[in-house]
């Protein structure tokens, strides 16, 4: 499969206003390829640079060193900036701070208005996006009447209206209640499955990462692990060392293994865990 995002030797430092202070290096050499249609989770605890990495993908931040290419466009190419942002949409943590309009459908149309999409086309895309996230009935509501999960779905609709090839979500569920989280995750997975949109999900919830195709673990500005979820989570000790937890079932399997049971370390779902333990008892 073709790569949609290519990150090569990415370094990034925040310049400090105080000239005597050294610039703070947030990203220290990242190489990452993301394939078309992939669903990738980026894990890491606070301050590891995962949000900074996300902001490089659609040129909100530009690399101090190295290159970021999205669908063949270098993020440093200013002439293709809007082209780039249209292809790589971004959803942020706080749903309230990314909704611009007081009417749901107008907010979904915001990007299209900016891009100068003609009315008929805009109307069609807005309605389709709202239907895709299941918020069509709320199109004339005010965002303040919606729950957190609904607002976040509206924000996602606003992005998919641009018909992007890839969506980067920066902890989209961190401020939501469990119900809202479920709604948002189901929506993202559906976008990935049905429309083939590449998803980069930045999160610190392990269970969210467990459902992805691939997990990238970051620590102190570097990629430390990059594999399928089962392989990543089986490295319980390494994850714990950098301050991350593993899904509960994986930890259970790991503890059982330590206690001498013959159980696979690559268990990430409840179902797998139940089956493995039943098998253990049967033996």
């Amino acid at each position, binding site marked *: 499969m073709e790569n949609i995002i290519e990150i090569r030797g990415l370094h990034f430092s925040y310049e400090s206003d105080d000239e005597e202070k050294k610039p703070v290096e947030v990203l220290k050499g990242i190489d990452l390829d993301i394939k078309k249609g992939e669903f990738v989770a980026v894990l890491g605890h606070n301050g590891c640079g995962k949000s900074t990495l996300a*902001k490089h993908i*659609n040129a*909100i931040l530009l690399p101090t060193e190295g290159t970021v290419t999205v669908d063949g466009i270098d993020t440093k190419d200013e002439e293709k900036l*809007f082209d780039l*942002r*249209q292809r790589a*949409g*971004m959803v*942020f943590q*706080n749903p*309230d*701070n*990314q*909704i*611009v*309009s*007081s*009417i749901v*459908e*107008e907010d979904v*149309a*915001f*990007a*299209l*208005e*900016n*891009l*100068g*999409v*003609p*009315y008929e086309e*805009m*109307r069609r895309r*807005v309605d389709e996006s709202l239907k895709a996230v299941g918020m069509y009935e709320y199109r004339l509501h*005010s*965002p*303040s009447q919606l729950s957190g999960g609904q607002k976040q779905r509206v924000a996602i609709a*606003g*992005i998919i209206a*641009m018909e992007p090839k890839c969506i980067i979500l920066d902890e989209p569920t961190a401020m939501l209640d469990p119900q809202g989280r479920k709604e948002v995750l189901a929506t993202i997975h559906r976008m990935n499955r049905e429309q083939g949109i590449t998803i980069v999900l930045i999160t610190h919830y392990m269970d969210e990462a467990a459902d992805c195709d691939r997990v990238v673990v970051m620590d102190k500005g570097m990629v430390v692990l990059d594999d399928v979820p089962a392989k990543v989570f089986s490295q319980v000790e390494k994850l714990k060392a950098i301050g991350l937890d593993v899904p509960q079932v994986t930890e259970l399997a790991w503890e059982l293994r330590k206690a001498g049971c013959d159980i696979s370390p690559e268990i990430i779902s409840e179902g797998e865990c139940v089956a493995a333990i039943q098998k253990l008892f049967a033996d």
Partner: protein
Amino acid sequence: MLRDITIGQYFPGNSIIHRLDPRFKIVITILYIVMLFTGSSYICLAVGAVYTFGAILLSRIPLKMFFKSVKPLFIFLMITALINLLFMSRGNVLFHWKFIKITDEGVNTSVFMVIRIVLLIMGSSLLTYTTSPITLTDAIERLLSPLRKIKFPVHELAMMMSIALRFIPTLIEETDKIMSAQKARGAEIDTGSFTTRAKNLISILVPLFISAFRRADELATAMECRCYHGGEGRTRLRQLKSAPRDYIALGITILFLAAVIVLSRLF
């Protein structure tokens, strides 16, 4: 408690007045104000009153709401009346005591001015009662758009207005939260002397401002991510289409204005 505050007080509805094109409504309101101020006799005011109450009836919003809109300006009305009463020196003196002199002309002008202002308030309330703030902003942007030629930032102003409107409920909610948090730590906001309350208000305003700036920063990033680059080359989802009824309403208003002008010449 803060949640009850509404800006512009819009009463959703589906009357003919609600359905008028907001651009026409603004123009009509301006003509209406001109109409009230050209007439200098009671007969002109009577015509204005017929127009005002006719429009209010059509809007199907209870008349009570319009009297309510006058209430906050009661003191202003009284002052206007008083000034006209005291400083009008023409006409026959009705009452004279030391330096206070009240003439029949003065009484006449005061009554006239009060009626005129009451009509003005009621008529312009009709605009905000029947048009949602966001529609109003949109209409203002479109009406002012010719000013873009002289580099007047029409789009930017409208964008600021609509973002402000969007964030009013969010910030009110936030204020509520901060107030509870500060009360829980013993800040006296509802009780205590005026100075203590004023001082404690700072403990609400500071976090509120900090959070508002943070929101502004995040919103700006989110807008950039959605390709925002000012008003240039923008298309709109909200289409304003003028219907025959808009032209009819405008025509009727012009007719009333003409009537007032003719009447003020005659009398």
